[in-house]
């Protein structure tokens, strides 16, 4: 996909297993881990795996979904506007939407779950709960979903189709999701250690939701040179030479020339993708410290791009970026920052996400 033109970021926020943006950022700086070993199938038990649930929420499905209060709390932080009106479109992104509800219906037969079980029904319900109008676009592209929302929102703004755009991303884990990753053997009893060169990889899964308000010319920050790239190589695997990662970073690298950067990587804790991603980032930005926060928060799937954008903004505002919580030496590259560091002296952060099937996304965030 061609890179999107630069766009201003007016506001961003998130909610994670550690709380809201400020609470999450502060806890990450303290090196706290939201992930805790929990039964992979909730009330049905199973192996203990690292999960991070928001606000004391239970993994098991309810009707309506028990994550609604978390979404409502997050939505209260969105600057008030006529969201969902023709000039204030909303781009909703998720990887799983309400698929847990569909699985709950499949298992228990309670038709009450069906009202949230498909992406369209789930988003329509969410829009009603949050008071949005009908100009709501639903997008999904696995774990780069949030980046796709940011890119399309930027394009709508530059095409004159919107004056202000809201990107809203959410993914709340459920037994369907945890069971699926567990079957893949990448969600196991080990805590994730992003970018660690060790014999066995593992990820954690976490709740996450976030928002970003974009406009053409207002806001303290700029998101520039957004890039999306799909390898079209294999429906689960990346090319072994890492060419897909490098191809995605190319446009961002060009836009970042001359800047002193830090890097917020995807870094889930899997070995193969972690090795490829860190090598590509090290080649493109050899001096920049690299962090991932999924060793604490878990992977919030399709929402991670916006969740981590909000945390990157908070890092710049407060002058300190959390390190790679849960990471351990030796790492795939010496650039991996295990400890927190000052963002002073840096004039931009490159944020990346990657997804199943060789989908890659990146953008550069700077002060306006």
């Amino acid at each position, binding site marked *: 996909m061609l890179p999107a033109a630069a766009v201003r970021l007016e506001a961003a926020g998130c909610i994670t297993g550690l709380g809201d943006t400020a609470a999450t950022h502060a806890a990450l700086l303290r090196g706290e881990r939201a992930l805790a070993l929990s039964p992979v199938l909730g009330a049905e038990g199973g192996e203990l795996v690292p999960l991070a649930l928001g606000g004391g929420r239970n993994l098991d499905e309810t009707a309506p979904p028990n994550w609604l209060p978390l979404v409502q709390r997050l939505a209260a932080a969105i600057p008030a506007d006529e969201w969902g009106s023709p000039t204030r479109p909303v781009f909703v992104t998720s990887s799983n939407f309400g698929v847990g509800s569909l699985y709950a219906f499949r298992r228990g037969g309670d038709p009450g779950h069906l009202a949230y079980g498909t992406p369209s029904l789930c988003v329509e319900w969410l829009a009603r709960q949050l008071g949005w109008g009908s100009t709501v676009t639903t997008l999904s592209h696995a774990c780069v979903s949030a980046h796709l929302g940011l890119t399309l929102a930027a394009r709508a703004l530059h095409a004159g189709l919107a004056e202000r755009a809201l990107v809203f991303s959410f993914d709340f884990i459920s037994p369907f999701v945890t069971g699926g990753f567990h*079957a*893949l*053997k*990448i969600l*196991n*009893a*080990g805590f994730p250690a992003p970018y660690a060169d060790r*014999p*066995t*990889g*593992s990820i954690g899964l976490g709740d996450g939701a976030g928002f970003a308000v974009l406009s053409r010319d207002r806001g303290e920050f700029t998101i520039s040179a957004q890039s999306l790239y799909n390898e079209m190589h*294999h*429906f*689960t*695997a990346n090319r072994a030479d890492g060419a897909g990662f490098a191809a995605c970073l190319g446009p961002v690298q060009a836009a970042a020339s001359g800047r002193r950067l830090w890097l917020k990587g995807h870094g889930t804790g*899997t*070995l193969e993708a972690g090795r490829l991603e860190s090598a590509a980032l090290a080649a493109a930005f050899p001096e920049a410290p690299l962090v991932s926060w999924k060793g604490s928060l878990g992977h919030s799937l399709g929402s991670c791009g916006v969740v981590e954008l909000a945390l990157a903004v908070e890092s710049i505002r407060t002058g300190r970026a959390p390190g790679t919580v849960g990471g351990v030496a030796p790492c795939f590259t010496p650039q991996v920052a295990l400890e927190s560091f000052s963002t002073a002296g840096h004039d931009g952060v490159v944020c990346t996400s990657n997804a199943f099937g060789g989908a890659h996304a990146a953008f550069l965030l700077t002060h306006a």
Partner: protein
Amino acid sequence: MPDPLKTKLKQLIVTTLKLEDVKAEDLSDDEPLIGSGLNLDSIDALELVVTLEKEYGIKIKSSEESRVALGSISHLAEFIRSRADPARLPG
């Protein structure tokens, strides 16, 4: 005399993955299962692992362990023998 576990594993692979034009007896003991002439991919590996866990009551804990176990029919047989209840093994 053929190893009955290896013979059983070859049959399981052909039937579980619905391999067309491949006979169990054609599978080599030592050829890599993934990334070889069989053209198996990660989804096939997942399907195979789930079947093996059910069939032999074993647990494959990580994708790295799965990769080692699926190194070849011989690797797989060795892995299963080291983990499974002997009563569940053929012959």
